[in-house]
C-alpha cells in the first residue's frame, strides 16, 4: 500500500513569509497528525485530526500556525508569519483509528529553513 505522502520535501523562506505544507495520508486512515521535529529532538505533536475534526491542538501556536483537513483526507499546515525558530522538519502521520494500540505511519517530512 502507498505510504503517507508529503510535499514539498524542502522549503527555504525568509522570516515573516508564509509557507504551507501538504499531506496525503494512507488510504482509509481516519486519524492524521502533524508533528514538529527540531534538530536533535524527538517529534512533538502539533495537531491531531479525527476525520475532519480536530481532536488535539493544544501545542499548536495558533497565532501563526493553522491546519485544516477538508473532506477528512488531505491536510495542509500553514505558518504565517514564519519565525526563525520554526526551522524544523514537519512530519505528517496517519493511523487507522485513534486507539492507543494503533501505530502511526509517518511521511518523509518537509524540512523548513527560515532565514
Amino acid at each position: 500500500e502507498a505510504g503517507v505522502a508529503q510535499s514539498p520535501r524542502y522549503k527555504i523562506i525568509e522570516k515573516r513569509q508564509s509557507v504551507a505544507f501538504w499531506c496525503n495520508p494512507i488510504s482509509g486512515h481516519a486519524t492524521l497528525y502533524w508533528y514538529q521535529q527540531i534538530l536533535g529532538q524527538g517529534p512533538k505533536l502539533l495537531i491531531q485530526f479525527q476525520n475532519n475534526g480536530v481532536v488535539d491542538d493544544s501545542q499548536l501556536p495558533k497565532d501563526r500556525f493553522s491546519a485544516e483537513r477538508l473532506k477528512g483526507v488531505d491536510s495542509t499546515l500553514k505558518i504565517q508569519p514564519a519565525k526563525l525558530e520554526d526551522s524544523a522538519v514537519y512530519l505528517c502521520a496517519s493511523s487507522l483509528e485513534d486507539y492507543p494500540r494503533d501505530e502511526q505511519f509517518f511521511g518523509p517530512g518537509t524540512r523548513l529553513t527560515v532565514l
Partner: protein
Amino acid sequence: AQSVAQPEDQVNVAEGNPLTVKCTYSVSGNPYLFWYVQYPNRGLQFLLKYITGDNLVKGSYGFEAEFNKSQTSFHLKKPSALVSDSALYFCAVRDKTGKLIFGQGTTLQVKP
C-alpha cells in the same frame, strides 16, 4: 505528566555484536510503548510496540524489546548488529489521553 527518557545520545557497537538502546518512561496507567527508527532524510518507521501480554516483544528487522514494569523500562535489543542498522532510534509512550510522547532519540552507530 508522561515522559520518555533515552539516556544515551549515541550507542556504538561493532557489527555482529549484540546491541541495546535504552528507554525509560513515566506514565499514569498502563503504558503503550513504541520504538521507531529514522534514517537520514526519511520519516519515522515503526519497529515494534508493547500493548499487553508477553514482556518480550519482537518486531521488524530482527529487533526486539523487553518491557520491565518494575523498572519502567522498554529497552530495544538485537542479538547481532548490522552496519545497515545505523540510524536514529526513538522510543515513545502513549497513555489513555492518546498523545504520543517521544524521547529525544539515540543515534546507533554500527561499525564494520
